[in-house]
Structures are given as C-alpha cells and as structure tokens.
C-alpha cells in the first residue's frame, strides 16, 4: 500500500501544526529583518497532484524569486521559500539600500546574496522550531536561489517523490504583510515537502504511527 493512503485527518492536523510552528517563527524573523508587521495564514496541508501543487504556487509560468534548501538529517525534506518579484524587490531594497528590479533582471550579486541570506534566516528559524518541537535533527543545506517560472522550480522537489507516488503532501504556509489596503494579498509561501520516508519519522517523533 502506498504511504499516502495511510494518511488520516489526524496526520494532516499534525502536519498543519508543523507548518504553524515553523512558519510562525519564520514570520517573526522576517518581521524583525524588515521592521514590518508580517502575518501568517493558517497553514494549508494538502495531498495533491504535482500539477495541483504548482497551481497552489501561482501556476507553472508565474515568475517568482525562490530560495531552496535541501534538509538532511532525521527527516529529509525539500523546503522552498517563494516570493513574488514585487515583494522581493521591496525586501531586498530594504536590506541592501540598493535599487533592484528582479522583473527586468537588473540585480547584482549583492542582491542575490541578500535574497539567499533572507531565505537562510527564514528557513533556519522554521527548521529550528520544527527541530525543537519534534526533537529531530534537521540540517539545512546551503541555500540556492532561482528567479524563474515556479513550475520549473517546484518540480525540483518532486524528483524523489515521483519515484514513489504521483501525489505530494505539501505543507504550505502563506505570509502577508499587514497592510490595510492589501490585506488579501499573499506575499510569500513556505512549502515543505518531506520525503516519503520522512512522514513516518515525523509522526513517530510526535507519538503517532502511520498504521492506525
């Protein structure tokens, strides 16, 4: 039997809590870096096809700035931090004091490096809180960035998974900048895609088994 068939609503709730704790800390970190109020949406945990997952990220051709980290350790996973270009410009300008425009590709190494660092800090705080909560050892790789179509970026996280399943369990947490005029706007996403074997390990660490 496929591992995805064993996932119950209790399991999904646990994964939701992971998204909650992780992204909550990351949102705080982002808010400190940018000196802005950042709100976090209720995490969305879904079992979806690869295509549906890409739709969640804005559609295959949607151009975004992304930071990718491979997570090694007890529960290997992929983590993506995805930001619309407009927001990326704003954030990086604030961090570096330089004018950047990711839409017209007028950015330099400093801007890219700042983006990497931003992703590093956010993913780091996500992981640390996740690690504390589950008592699992999780080590992030050096962050890698890509500014490209979201379909091309996210599908990178499907490589291992696609050997096991045509579905993916995604823990998605959206972030918003608190702003009276644009409350509905989603500014960024954290996508955590645990490897197939990692689910059992995460559930076990929290005292739940897959076979119930």
């Amino acid at each position, binding site marked *: 039997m*496929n591992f995805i068939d064993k996932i119950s609503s209790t399991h999904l709730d646990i994964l939701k809590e992971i998204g909650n704790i992780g992204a909550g800390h990351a949102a705080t970190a982002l808010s400190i870096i940018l000196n802005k109020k950042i709100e976090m949406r209720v995490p969305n945990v879904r079992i979806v096809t690869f295509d549906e997952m*890409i739709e969640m990220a804005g*559609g*295959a*051709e949607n*151009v975004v700035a992304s930071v*990718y980290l*491979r997570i090694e350790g007890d529960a290997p996973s992929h983590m993506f931090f995805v930001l619309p270009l407009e927001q990326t410009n704003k954030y990086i300008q604030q961090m570096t004091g330089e004018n950047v425009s990711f839409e017209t*590709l007028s950015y330099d190494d400093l801007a890219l490096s700042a983006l990497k660092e931003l992703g590093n800090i956010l993913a780091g705080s996500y992981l640390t809180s996740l690690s504390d909560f589950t008592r699992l050892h999780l080590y992030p*790789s*050096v962050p*890698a*960035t*890509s*500014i*490209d*179509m*979201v*379909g*091309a*970026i996210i*599908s*990178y996280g*499907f*490589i*291992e998974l*696609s*050997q*096991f*399943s*045509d579905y993916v369990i995604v823990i998605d947490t959206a972030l918003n900048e608190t702003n009276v005029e644009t409350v509905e706007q989603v500014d960024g996403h954290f996508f955590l895609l645990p490897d*197939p074997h990692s689910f059992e390990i995460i559930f076990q660490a929290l005292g739940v088994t897959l076979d119930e």
Partner: protein
Amino acid sequence: MNIVKAPYVIRTSGLGSCVGVVVFDQLQQIAGLAHIMLPDSSLAKNGSLSAAKYADTAVYDLVSRLVKQGARKTALKAKIAGGAQMFQFTSGSELMRIGPRNVEAVKKHLLSLRIEIVGEDVGGSSGRTIEFDPKTSILAIKTVNKGITYL
C-alpha cells in the same frame, strides 16, 4: 502525454529538470508531447505508476499512440527541450543531476527507435515553456531571461 493534429497546438509550461519531448510527422501534421520527469521506470518504487513520466516508457508509448492515430513510423522526427539544473550545488547526489540524466535517457530511447532529433534546447539553468505547432513543425521555447526562441 497528449497527441494533437493541426490546427491545434500542444504545449507544456514550466519545464525545469523535466524534458519535453515532441515527436511528430510533418506531412500528416500530427504531433505528440511527453513530459519526462525521470530517466528510467526502474526507479519506480511502486508498481502502479503512470508510465508517462519516465523516459523509457513514455517515448515508446508516445510513438505507438502516434502510429495508432495515423502517423507514419518511419517519418517520425523529434524535438526536445528542458533538462535544466534549476539549482546549482557544488556537491549533490545523482538525483540532483536529474536534468542532464533525463536528456541522456530521452536521446537514447529516441535513437533506439531510429527517430532523428532535429532540434534541441537542453541543459542550462532556466525554466522553459514550450509550444509545438504540428502545421509548421516549429517548437517555440519561452524562457524568463531570453524571451522566445524558435526551433
């Protein structure tokens, strides 16, 4: 995996390490497109997976479906695009090199079916959206950095 006849066009969006394979019969104006995720179906850890995502199974399926719909096997040609490495790591597992491996596998299986590759845009580190028009046999490739190129 899908088959089209003119005047319809066929496209796939946001190819990263995946490879888009277009096999077509120019005279019959019929084309098929497969979206390859992995080089080999032996990588599957579960028996009941869709054959369309592996280079070995998808290429053969594509050709047999084309022939069933009226394409002439000996007239088939191919154009391929994709197989990028979206993220650059200094060290990495074999799976990290998946783009180039997908390209190699697709070429190998096309060659074994004696299908000539008449156009390719593979590798690099950019995502691609591709669209093929069976009427003209032109493959349009869109990237974020370079705009649209035609093969």
